[in-house]
């Protein structure tokens, strides 16, 4: 157990003066708490469990990020997967965090704002499941070959289900949010971080080293190979881009912050530059 302290930066410029009062609504609080896997043990002891409308405290500040994530599309109830990430981003984060079911606030050591642990099971599940699907797609269509092939597909899927469930049982995952998340990031960056980490929860690790000149540390691991890899950086940047271009119930200044951060990710987080820029 660690003890830590925080200083609260200007509430206007972090967006907490705008979004903080919006979350102070019991039905929203009940809903967001129960559907995003909050681990109650880790939100007490000063983190805001008993004072969740106080926008100087961590819980209110993560609620603000969830509010932005949920209500920034004009027609926010349209969260169809066929729409853009501004619409379904909230659903994606919700379903990932609900499945993970362990969202914690912790002091951290100052080196990270958030970390997803043990998403390896999800990654194993995703990769193995895709292999079963690939097998199934290539099945022959004449009897009895198709029967045998179908049986193998069934066994493959059953095996993945059983083994990944055992993996989940012994290697439970969790998402930890640290002090820097609450007090060095503005509300839209916090929302982007939730999207980013949810992509890791979905089992997509980074697969490349940061390119030459990257602000994230040239040559170090943690980058995505390219935009088409559809990794956590792409989700993060695309969400910020959509928020900048079409986000509602916000202000120009907050959208401008999203644009600058989106461009930073595009420039620095892909081994191969995507070849475009947010203007």
């Amino acid at each position, binding site marked *: *157990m*660690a003890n*830590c*302290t*925080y*200083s*609260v930066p*200007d509430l*206007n*410029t*972090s967006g907490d*003066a705008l979004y903080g009062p919006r979350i102070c*609504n*019991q039905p929203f609080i009940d*809903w967001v708490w*129960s*559907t995003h896997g909050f681990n*109650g*043990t*880790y939100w*007490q*002891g000063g983190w805001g469990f008993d004072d*969740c*409308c106080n926008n100087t405290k*961590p819980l209110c500040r993560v609620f603000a990020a969830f509010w932005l994530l*949920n209500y920034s599309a004009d027609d*926010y109830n349209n969260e169809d*997967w066929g729409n853009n*990430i501004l619409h379904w981003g*909230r659903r*994606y984060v919700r*379903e*990932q965090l609900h499945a993970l079911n362990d969202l914690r606030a912790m002091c951290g050591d*100052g*080196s*990270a704002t958030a970390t997803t642990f043990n998403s390896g099971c999800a990654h194993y599940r*995703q990769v193995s*499941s895709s292999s079963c699907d690939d097998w199934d797609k290539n099945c022959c269509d004449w009897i009895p070959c198709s029967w045998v092939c179908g049986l193998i597909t069934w066994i493959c*899927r059953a095996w993945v289900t059983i083994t990944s469930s055992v993996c989940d049982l012994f290697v439970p995952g969790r998402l930890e949010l640290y002090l*820097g998340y609450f007090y*060095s990031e*503005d509300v839209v960056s916090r929302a982007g971080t939730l999207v980013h980490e949810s992509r890791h929860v*979905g089992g997509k690790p980074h697969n490349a080293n940061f390119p030459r000149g990257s*602000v994230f*540390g040239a040559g170090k691991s*943690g980058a995505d190979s390219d935009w088409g890899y*559809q990794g956590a950086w*792409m*989700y993060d940047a695309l969400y910020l881009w959509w928020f900048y*271009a079409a986000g509602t119930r916000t202000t*120009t*200044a*907050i959208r401008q912050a999203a644009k*600058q951060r989106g*461009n930073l990710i595009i*420039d620095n987080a892909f081994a191969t*530059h995507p*070849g*475009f*820029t947010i203007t």
Partner: protein
Amino acid sequence: MANRWVRVSVFALGAVAVGVYIAISQSQRRSDTVGPAQNPRNPFNDNDASRVLHDFLAAAYTQTDEGDEAYKRVLERLRSQAESVIPEIARIEATLRETDYPTRFALILAASELRHPSALPWLRTVALSRIPAERSSDPHSFSTVAEETILRTMAIDGIGNLARENNSEAIEALFQSLATPSLSIHRAAVQQLLQSPDVPRERIVSALPEDQHFLLDLRRIDVREAPQIRNPELTVLGFEAHGIQTRGVETHGFTSPPPSHTVSEQPSPRVTPRLTHNPPPTLNRR
């Protein structure tokens, strides 16, 4: 006798094992505690420039029923005092904690929005200032260099506002920024230079390192033209393995409540972790 000692030893070992297990599980369950430190004092002074700057920042981060009108009014006031506001911006920025990135960003945004030549020296200082060495040991998650770079690209955009009005000093400042080591600053500066009048492309090419000439050809596209995410539902944890594809707006009982502008009566409602699948609250306009 020996048998008895064996039984006692086994019992004792078992008790110790259970005790160790409980201790470990308890230590893992124990959460961190947190409390407020002394907050920094209000950096704004009691003078006209400071007041209008404060009002601008409040308006820039507030959404009112008036829409942008309130923001435009206070921006007009800010611009009418541009020459006295700039020293105030510089003074306040110097008093902030280095990690107060959102407020530092807001001050640079204010200086950019002035679109006044008096803002140029400070914006140039910000854009060209050396980025402090990385303070994070895990820059992938949080990078101080990234945060500092965002501040500088915002400053570059502010300089670009002046360069587009053919301010030659602003154009020179953008070229100077191409001598810094940051790719993002180069990208921002190139984009601004390409939009500035009378800047030959060849001059930009010669100012850039050869491996960054691609910055001149970056596509300036709308987000709708960017490659989007295909089948995000297939990577949702727990669904992809079972071949369940979620379509439409069916969300397994988790339909979000519409956002609300109504603040709850209780000043600090307790979070009640009820396992309810009720829809999230709705936006009730005041």
